[in-house]
């Protein structure tokens, strides 16, 4: 399970709080892993916040959407590397997981929508669509409701990186 990681993330110079590596197949073997992991991590990173309980609840909700998205859309085999960083009130979640070009495209598209000027309209459209929501709904909500800054990155090793930057206590309680 989690190795308390020292130092900074490869992708950002923010101090690392926590990192874990999991086999993507193991992670995706049970839906409840998303819930368990988001609850567990939220508790770990919430103790020194302004309001630990409120923070943990928000953090867990946001992280759960990211994990559920990866659960649904990911490449077949490889490692899921999960790490979280923090600088002051900015929290960063980084998920690196196997993805072919098509999967990478799905994420690029969803992140572009969530960052778009009319993200709110797109979110409402996705939310009230007749069909089951696509994988982008959670990311859209993170952009719209949580003010998350989302980004993606392509890795050479057949994996991709999904990053969310959140400022959960910045907003008014």
């Amino acid at each position, binding site marked *: 399970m989690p190795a308390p990681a020292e130092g900074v993330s490869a992708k950002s110079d923010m101090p690392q709080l926590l990192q874990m590596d999991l086999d993507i197949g193991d992670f995706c073997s049970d839906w409840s892993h998303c819930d368990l992991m988001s609850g567990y991590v939220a508790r770990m990173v919430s103790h020194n916040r302004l309001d630990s309980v409120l923070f943990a609840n928000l953090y867990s909700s946001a992280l759960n959407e990211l994990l559920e998205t990866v659960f649904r859309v990911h490449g077949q085999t490889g490692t899921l590397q999960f790490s979280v960083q923090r600088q002051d009130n900015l929290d960063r979640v980084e998920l690196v997981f196997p993805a072919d070009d098509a999967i990478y495209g799905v994420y690029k598209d969803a992140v572009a929508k969530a960052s778009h000027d009319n993200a709110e309209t797109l*979110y409402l459209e996705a939310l009230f669509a007749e069909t089951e929501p696509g994988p982008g709904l959670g990311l859209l909500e993170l952009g719209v409701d949580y003010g998350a800054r989302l980004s993606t990155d392509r890795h050479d090793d057949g994996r991709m990186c999904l990053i969310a930057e959140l400022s959960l206590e910045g907003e008014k309680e």
Partner: protein
Amino acid sequence: MIAENAALAFAWSYNDNDQEFSLKGSLRPQKSDELSLCMSELEGSVAKVSGKFYVNVRRLVRMNNVAFHALACKILDLVRERADLSIHVTTSSVVGWATRKFAVLEAVSDKITVSEYDSEFYPGQTFLEEGGFIPILRTQTKLTWHHERTLLADHGLKPDMEVADICCGIGDFAVLLQKEYRPARLVALDHSRSSLDYARKVAGEFGVRGIDYVFGDASEMLLESDQFDFVTCRHSLQVFDRPELILRELFRICKPGGRVYVTNEKNSHCLGEPRAETIQKTYNEVARLWAHFNMDIELGPKSRRYLIEAGFDDIRMESFMVTNRDGNPQDFADIIQSWENVYAGQMAVQRGDSEEEIRALRKGFQDHIFAALHPKGYAGWPVWVASGRKPA
């Protein structure tokens, strides 16, 4: 009804009388059809009503977008199908994401309204939160600490424990406890944002670190079960119309073998010499005044019964008397003055007392102050302390 697995531990219920469908727990399904039973019961409940239908999600702590999609679409369908129907969604301010998430429903239909449940939380909230209570609480705690400082140890508090102070108010008890007992963890919870802001400011100014001030509702806390060795709840059971609901939660968050510690008053037993009679009269009236607002300022001696009925064992109980001899008599007088300001100045006015009655009420407070400051006087305010063990 209850559905249960790790990510999906939620329950729903329908209250015919209030036309209210309530959802609580954790709603993170993988597919929306995992909610189909709940959704069809929602639909069935709506079918029986006309006018306004209430959906209560105050106790819904976690919800993913699969569930939200299902619920939001269902609510929208329902108001679109039925011209006579409108739906109100009640959220909680304690669950950080809820109000914003549900607010989108208002944007898509003017037959859906969403609001946060907060006001009229407990009967006397406006008096206690907006009234001049902050200075009272500070002085009160200063004087009660004089007694509780050692009493707490008799009731089982030791250094390095995991401690929670529920209904912490402005948090000065937590600060004193932190300094004196060095707990391993100290969570202080209240439902007043202004009190918590104040508490954080004071702790910051005094360089006290490590107290976790948390916004929450004591009758339904987001804190997990079986976490704390020692749970305190001071002068607060007496402000709720249903103290047993709070005790149930104190019991839940306490570890088996841990203890819950409560203090409460019995104001009619406040006393003073000289002028004992008018003092007595006023405090008898204070008890009636609180009762008028469904609060029980006479609860102190009932704590033992409440603790036993909540399932605690090994009950320890005693009382102490805060007096004008505990320190500076002026401190005691200041407490009484602020009681007069809130009880006579606000509560009695709101109850509709006549000027005459209010004058009589004020008289006893002034006489109590007179006794406190009198060189040969004695003035007292009794407090009941009780604690119980959660069976291991």
